[in-house]
């Protein structure tokens, strides 16, 4: 009764075990394939993520060896000591234990873990050390997008003259550490750019320090990882790391307030008016509705429930919108991997790539990809689940096509 004698059974056992081996082999193999897995934690691109990777790699190896050891021992014992049907009925020796062995295998893992612990302590301290010459950025999570306030002036405040604010896309200089002060406006979120460092929770009422640094120019994607309600899955962010000189140019542009649309662009002028009437109670455009927004702050109209919305001053300088889930522009021509990429032209759109491939857009000089932004203005909750009626996310304003056209024209001027 205790043995499986039929060939079918043997096939079942062998097939199951083979599947197990193949599965785990394939898993380990693919885990180290870094193409087309932009969020992978195993392909570090900055010093901090590299420290983590260097620390955990030997732990994985030790762990793997331990598992193979245990599995091997179990399999060996099963094959060696299993009851064979034609055996005699003699029972095995009743061994109750072996104190020396017990002590040995209590101490042995203790020693291995002590080594791991020693390495870990160093890395924890290194990762929490302050960096010299870092760029300071305040990061805040909100349902369901990210905002950034840069301390450009270096006076440790994030709202003095010359400091800049932006949303969803964080632009940083290559090779320079960036100190993040992370907080939240409503619930707990988590800021995570796997290629640059581990994640850090954004807790309301609390500022916490974190840091990232990119070694090479590129776009590094991230995802909110602390469950934050309805659209948690749609709360993404990306970091564009650009060379220092390009970064300075970018900062200079961002420091400018938004210009009024040129008078000859009638659609945009009308759009600005629509914006002031419809959008300005939540969205800030620097130079346009600062006082209105400041007043709201004053009146404490910005409780911890979102009601604030992303800063749109240089809206078109970003490649994505709505929490980094939709492309704002056509993507870059293939082959250029600069964080902003080369410009594609209206005449040559088919070489610009597919704008529905999420997160690939970048260059603000590329033409606006209208369908997404129009759909968004038409009915935001249909594009991204939100609970605007409960004060979280953008409501459906029931705009007409004319209003949408005007608003898009205006938003297109916010460079």
């Amino acid at each position, binding site marked *: 009764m205790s043995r499986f004698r039929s060939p079918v059974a043997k096939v079942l056992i062998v097939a199951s075990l083979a599947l197990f081996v193949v599965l785990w082999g394939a898993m380990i193999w693919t885990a180290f394939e870094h193409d087309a897995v932009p969020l992978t934690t195993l392909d570090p691109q900055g010093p901090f993520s590299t420290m983590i990777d260097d620390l955990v790699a030997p732990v994985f190896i030790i762990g793997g060896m331990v598992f193979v050891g245990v599995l091997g021992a*179990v399999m060996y014992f099963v094959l060696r000591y299993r009851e064979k049907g034609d055996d005699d009925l003699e029972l095995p020796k009743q061994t109750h234990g072996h104190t020396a062995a017990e002590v040995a295998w209590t101490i042995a893992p203790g020693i291995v873990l002590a080594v791991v612990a020693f390495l870990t302590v160093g890395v924890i*301290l290194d990762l929490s050390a302050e960096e010299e010459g870092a760029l300071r950025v305040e990061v805040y999570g909100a349902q369901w997008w990210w905002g950034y306030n840069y301390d450009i002036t270096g006076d440790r405040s994030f709202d003095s003259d010359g400091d800049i604010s932006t949303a969803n896309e964080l632009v940083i200089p290559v090779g320079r550490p960036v100190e993040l002060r992370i907080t939240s406006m409503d619930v707990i979120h988590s800021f995570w750019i796997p290629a640059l460092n581990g994640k850090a929770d954004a807790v*309301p009422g609390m500022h916490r320090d974190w840091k990232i640094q990119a070694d090479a120019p590129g776009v590094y994607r991230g995802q909110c990882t602390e469950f934050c309600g309805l659209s948690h899955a749609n709360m993404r962010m990306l970091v564009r790391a650009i060379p220092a000189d390009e970064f300075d140019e970018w900062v200079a542009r961002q420091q400018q307030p938004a210009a009024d649309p040129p008078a000859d662009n009638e659609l945009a002028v009308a759009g600005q008016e629509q914006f002031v009437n419809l959008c300005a109670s939540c969205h800030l455009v620097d130079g346009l509705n600062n006082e209105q927004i400041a007043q709201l702050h004053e009146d404490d109209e910005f409780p911890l429930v979102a009601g604030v919305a992303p800063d749109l001053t240089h809206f078109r300088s970003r490649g994505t919108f709505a929490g980094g889930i939709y492309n704002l522009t056509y993507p870059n021509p293939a082959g250029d991997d600069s964080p902003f990429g080369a410009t594609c032209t209206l005449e040559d759109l088919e070489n610009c790539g597919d704008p529905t491939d999420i997160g690939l857009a970048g260059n603000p000089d590329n033409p606006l990809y209208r369908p997404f932004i129009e759909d968004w203005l038409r009915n935001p909750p249909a594009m991204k689940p939100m609970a605007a009626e409960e004060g979280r996310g953008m409501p459906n304003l029931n705009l007409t096509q004319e209003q949408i056209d005007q608003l898009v024209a205006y938003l297109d001027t916010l460079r």
Partner: protein
Amino acid sequence: MATPDPGQLALPSGNGAVEHRPLGVFTRPSSSKGWRSWFTSVDHKKIGVMYGAAALFFFIIGGLEALLIRVQLWAPRGTLLTADEYNQVFTMHGTTMIFLVVMPIGAAFANYLMPLQIGARDVAFPRINAFSFWCFLFGGIFLNTAWFLGGGADGGWFMYAPNSSVVFSPGHGIDFWNIGLLITGIASLTGAVNLIVTVLNMRAPGMTLMKMPVFTWMTLVTQFLLLFAIPVLTAAQVLLLFDRAFDANFFNVEAGGDPLLWQHLFWIFGHPEVYLMILPAFGLVSDILPVFSRKPIFGYPFIVFSGIAIGFMGWGVWAHHMFVSGIGPVSVLVFSLTTMFIAVPTGVKILNWTATMARGKLKLDTPMLFCIGLITMFTIGGISGVTHSVAPADTQQTDTYYIVAHFHYVLFGGAFFGFMAGFYFYWPKVFGYLMNETLGKVNFWLMFVGFNLTFGPMHVLGLQGMSRRIYTYDAGYGFEFWNQVATIGAFVLAGSIALFIFNIFYSRAKAKSMANPGPDPWDARTIEWMIPSPVPEYNFDPIPTITRRDDFWYRKYGETEDHMPVRIAATDEVCQSAEGEHDVHLPSPSYWPIVTAFGLPIVGYGLLYTHWLSLIGGLIVVAGIYGWALEPPDDPEAEHDHHDDDHGPVGEVEPDRAEDEDLSESEKEVETVG
């Protein structure tokens, strides 16, 4: 011992002889047969079976929720569920599996087996035991009625503040979660007191602590963990309840509420919770493995003390759930180190199990296969756990599918494989028929394959950056392939569960034409196998006197000087005869536990809808308690020919009404919540 008839007491004061009449509208139930008896039973075996049945029912619900999750994630931009529905489904899946499946299956085994393993007739407080079960069942049902009353909780099973506040989750889902778990918490707490007292006080003569079967030991450790962990969760839930129901400011950030307080309280409960889910399975394996290896557990004291060590150390590691929460580098460091070293006692257990198999004569029956499955699969979960304890690595791994993979390898590959081993092993003892072996083996291999297909790929998904709790993902992140493998695996796993259920009914039908498997179908080692299968209502007759560990085995076998076993008695000679004396005095059934427990969900509904209902519920609870208090544990009307045993502790009830004080306290928790 019987309650003295109050009428016989020579009372020094008072009004002389007192006529005792049970209070209330019911005549006292007396039958222990028929379907009605299940509602009034105080028999630990019936209660254990009900725990198991209810847990399997909730397991099917939780499993269906899991399948919904897997189908939704089959491909990018899945449309089976909306974001809102998905959030409810994963919250309820986690809550159901933890509180309504794994914990109660542990309770089922503890209730059924532990008194048998220590040679008791029942638990210390049989009526409280019934009350615990009904609290659990009503709490679970209350929790799930949320589906029909506006939707389930949507904050994740960990229910982090302030996302769980009314502002961010205005529906009643989280209230159902909160109150439902408060009710099941009463079940756990009263159960814990009951089972600890049972183990400490009601062991058969000669059964010292170090002669107890490992499962009994692990039950003791588990119940201590519950005893001390549940009140912490209760405190946190009370804060949440007051925030949601009465506008308190505990997690209101504007008023200075600190969201991390919830996290601390929750995980102080939550981490011992992890161990109290896994330890019963460890206990089962430690008892089953020797039977099929034909030799005693290797290093019994080390197995026991490592279990105790896990229980203790489990209190010092909670903040490893908070490495990314912003608790400061020093705290991260300390908790990282404590977490690493909890791997030591766990490793000791695994090595001892492996050593138990060495040089044995292994019978690879279904329970044994599941035990081997546990040893190997749990090892994977344990090792991935060590990678989390490396705090910097955890900042990459936490809240990704790597964590999901980890704890499913622990809770499914560990706890549930152990429970499956326990089901197959103890089925004949409980129901009097053996499960079909061939189906059992297919069941195991199907579950093994399905389990690995489902949860293995999640390691890769997590390391490649797929977050937990996302209802959708986009193309271009490379998540498609392994999600599809996992979804296929989930259906294979569902198939294996279906096969298990089929096996139950198939084997039962077959068993009608087969002989009873007898008390000892596996040539087992511990004393629960001495008594007939299924177990008679009175368990042992007489209570055995224990002389050594694995007492039953040594009644059958002697040992030569070089530890070779020699048969000294036929199994039939040492087992209890099925036709023994039936006149053992047992605690009488009672209506009051179910009545009292029934009041609790009514209080809960009242809190959510109309406070008048709470009042009614509260009155039911109070009436239940007073009825209970005035009812003697034994029915004085019942005819009993008292069986006088010639030994110490017998699992009968205390004549004290003071056990009802315990109840009053649990009631107090509810009332204060109300």
